[in-house]
């Protein structure tokens, strides 16, 4: 359930080489733009509102990626930026509203005429397609194409990257893949009915009130069965959106041009301003930053923000800073306080850690204010249902409350403190800096931490995520982080706070939050089909977790995006998780 974010890993040698290119271009984009609306660049101008609104079509939007997509195939992609970008050439049943600010987390119909119609038990969900939808070759889009798209996404042997929500929730009855389907039309899956070309009905194995979020997944983008070439489909995905592939050199670059069969009247959610979209892949990350600053590039597609070098330059220059947006990600950096490890089985000892830690130190480890806000609970504020709760006064005492921590230590019978280990992922310098900061701040109250680094690839499988290993190695604090696939209490909290997802064999996403009250509230929230009631329940789950003192929230993550003068109609969509809305962006001409 953890959507991947591209993390730029910079090797020393490569980094030095980049340093040389970094000296190349450093033009300051000031007022060299013309045409379109002449909005003045202001810091955070694309947060909560659209910057330089425009309806003028034309031009080429140039994007670059420091890595590569996991796949361009709708069945096989799990990168957040890819879920944003794919909307340019694919339409799913529903999508996030193309609105800045809090409205962006709401779902609106895309291929469907309305959001899903649920049966009373929330196990059957029905969607009706809009009339007049067409693929790029002019053939009509039917509910069978949507069904086929979902069917093929179930095949995790062929498509290893995508999420598994449909595998987990649909009443599959043993169905594995359309490639092993014996029926003539390859539509043998019983869990999805297509009574006519406009209607599609999903049958779930268990009730789920938030199915519309599944209908938003790229897996519901229609795929014509005749054009499906399995793993090679990513070479030419048949477009249902406003753009289609003109060229596609995998691993290198590709170009999208207008899809003549896309009908804007069926699609109010995409502005589709540029005539052409080019994407370069595997471009040096520092080179991308420099080209953005110079105006030779419009968007860094990954949305991971500027690199350290460019960020330092931009923050020091007010004119450059005016071109940045500090976007909120639905992502929290936090640590789990492990109640398996003595003396942390005592809640007062856990509270001593909550009070003792320097929260500003945690924030600085993630880059200070640019890295995000000090988190007071797990649920990020932009997620519906968030209720402000600050059980341990993080906001009032950002450097920790030493007196309260000492009182709690008295209460738990360890007035002189205790010794535990703290684990972090060895490849992540920010987690290391967090551990070092915790070590310093907790030493103030006598809690001695020893730092244990583990390889991130096996962190959940063999180390922190394996309960007996964590216990045997005295891992009292486990540094961690979590991002939601979509902004919703279920998507964010369920996998990290529900104690019943903890498996003794390891590979856990919940590193050790075990509480009956929390579990009970999770059950209530899962069964609730009324959206606002459900959101409120997730807010209560968040509060209950903090009451257990098993989670030590660190930072609600943010990212510094650069918005060159060349683009207009640009805003950050919170539903997509803090990316610019690529389907809305235009270029000045």
């Amino acid at each position: 359930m953890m959507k991947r974010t591209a993390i730029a890993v910079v090797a020393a040698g490569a980094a030095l080489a980049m340093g040389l290119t970094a000296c190349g271009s450093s033009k300051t984009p000031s007022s060299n733009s013309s045409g379109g609306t002449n909005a003045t660049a202001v810091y955070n101008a694309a947060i909560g509102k659209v910057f330089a609104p425009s309806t003028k079509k034309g031009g080429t939007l140039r994007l670059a990626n420091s890595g590569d997509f996991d796949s361009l195939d709708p069945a096989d992609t799990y990168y957040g930026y890819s879920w944003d970008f794919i909307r340019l050439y694919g339409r799913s049943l529903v999508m996030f509203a193309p609105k800045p600010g809090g409205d962006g987390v709401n779902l609106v119909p895309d291929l469907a005429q309305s959001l899903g119609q649920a049966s009373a038990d929330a196990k059957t969900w029905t969607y009706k397609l809009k009339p007049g939808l067409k693929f790029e070759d002019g053939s009509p889009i039917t509910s069978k194409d949507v069904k086929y798209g979902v069917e093929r996404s179930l095949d995790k042997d062929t498509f290893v990257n995508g999420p598994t929500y449909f595998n987990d929730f649909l009443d599959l009855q043993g169905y594995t893949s359309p490639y092993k389907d014996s029926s003539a039309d390859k539509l043998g899956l019983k869990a999805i009915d297509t009574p006519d070309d406009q209607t599609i009905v999903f049958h779930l194995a268990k009730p789920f009130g938030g199915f519309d979020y599944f209908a938003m997944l790229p897996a519901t983008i229609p795929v014509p069965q005749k054009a499906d070439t399995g793993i090679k489909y990513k070479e030419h995905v048949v477009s249902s959106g406003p753009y289609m592939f003109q060229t596609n050199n995998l691993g290198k670059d590709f170009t999208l041009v207008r899809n003549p069969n896309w009908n804007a009247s069926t699609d109010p959610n995409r502005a589709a301003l540029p005539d052409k979209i080019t994407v370069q892949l595997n471009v040096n990350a520092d080179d991308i930053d420099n080209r953005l600053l110079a105006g030779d590039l419009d968007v860094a597609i990954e949305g991971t923000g500027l690199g350290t070098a460019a960020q330092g330059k931009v923050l020091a220059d007010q004119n450059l800073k005016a071109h940045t947006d500090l976007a909120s990600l639905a992502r929290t950096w936090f640590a789990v306080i492990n109640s398996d490890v003595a003396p942390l089985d005592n809640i007062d000892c856990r509270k001593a850690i909550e009070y003792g830690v320097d929260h500003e130190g945690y924030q600085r480890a993630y880059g200070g204010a640019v890295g995000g806000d000090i988190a007071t609970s797990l649920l990020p504020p932009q997620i519906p249902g968030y209720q402000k709760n600050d059980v341990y006064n993080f906001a009032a005492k950002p450097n920790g409350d030493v007196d309260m921590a000492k009182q709690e230590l008295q209460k738990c019978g360890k007035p002189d403190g205790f010794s535990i280990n703290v684990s972090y992922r060895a490849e992540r310098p920010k987690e290391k800096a967090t551990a070092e900061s915790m070590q310093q701040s907790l030493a103030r109250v006598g809690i001695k931490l020893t730092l244990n680094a583990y390889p991130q690839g096996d962190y959940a499988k063999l180390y922190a995520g394996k309960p007996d290993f964590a216990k045997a190695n005295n891992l009292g604090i486990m540094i961690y982080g979590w991002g939601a696939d979509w902004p919703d209490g279920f998507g964010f909290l369920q996998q990290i706070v529900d104690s019943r997802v903890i498996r003794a064999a390891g590979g856990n996403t919940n590193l050790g939050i075990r509480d009956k009250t929390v579990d009970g509230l999770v059950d209530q929230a899962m069964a609730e089909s009324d959206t606002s009631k459900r959101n409120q329940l997730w807010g209560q789950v968040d509060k209950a977790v903090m009451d257990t003192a098993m989670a030590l929230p660190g930072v609600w993550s943010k990212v510094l995006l650069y918005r060159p003068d060349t683009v207009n109609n640009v805003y950050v969509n919170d539903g997509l998780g803090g990316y610019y809305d690529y389907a809305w962006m235009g270029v000045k001409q």
Partner: protein
Amino acid sequence: MVLGPEPVGGDTTTLVADEPIALAGARAIEGRSLGRIAWTRLKRDRVAMTGGGVVVFLILVAVFSHFIIKYLGHPPNEFNQKLVDATLQTPMGKFGGISWSHPLGVEPLNGRDLFSRIVYGSWISLLIASLATALSVIIGTVMGVIAGYFGGWVDTVISRLMDVFLAFPLLLFAIALAGVIPNKAFGLGGDALRIALLVFIIGFFNWPYIGRIIRGQTLSLREREFVDAARSLGARSPYILFRELLPNLVAPILVYTTLLIPTNILFEAALSFLGVGVKAPTATWGGMLSDAVHWYQIDPYFMLFPGLAIFVTVLAFNLFGDGLRDALDPRAR
């Protein structure tokens, strides 16, 4: 007579090879021992002497690092976040925050004193490198002498063993081992355990290099007249090994020890760089470089100083080692 080194004392005429070192100094005819000749040659080599001087200085710094930090520096793990710009996260002030209080500046992000960390790192680096070198040299010498002297199947077995060790994927092994070692083992814990482990990894797997050199030297030495002479007088193997061969191997051992130390310093730095070394936040040169990689573009001084420390140390040891080799064996020049 041209290929091998002279027997100790430079004496091939006497059949009494007993106590050659003690005798050497007392001889009026030869006048000077090999050691004194070597020292005279070394003294004339300014480059080597400079290197040697730096080496002595570094060893003193390392040995007294705790005192230096206590009286001249700050606790090496102490944060000084008020010296760091909260937005940019880089040290305030020029050149990485250099000031009287922090002569080499401070780390970005947390403001730890670089001078103290580099001084403390010298202790860790030199400790690990010298202990590991000692381990390699001891194992290598013993195995090399045994293989070279006895020959036959003993030589074959030991030589094949060396091949096995040389073929061992050491770096991968080290990385794997670092992930699985517990916090306490063999009665050691924390940094002591990590240091012991690094000494073992670096020392135990590097002995074949010196072992091969010693084996080759022993092979040529054992055919020499003074060994034949000792044997014909009824000397047994242990006597020949320890009293005849070993003293003649002191020169190559000394030279390769001096040259192995910088290699091991680099290896330790590499392991720390990869996160396999001593645990954070204990300062090591390699670990500091590894941290500095993320900052070099906005705070190059953080990378510069630990890098310089490694560079100077390795260079000094190498210059001194080369000079020592030239002095002990001028024909190898």
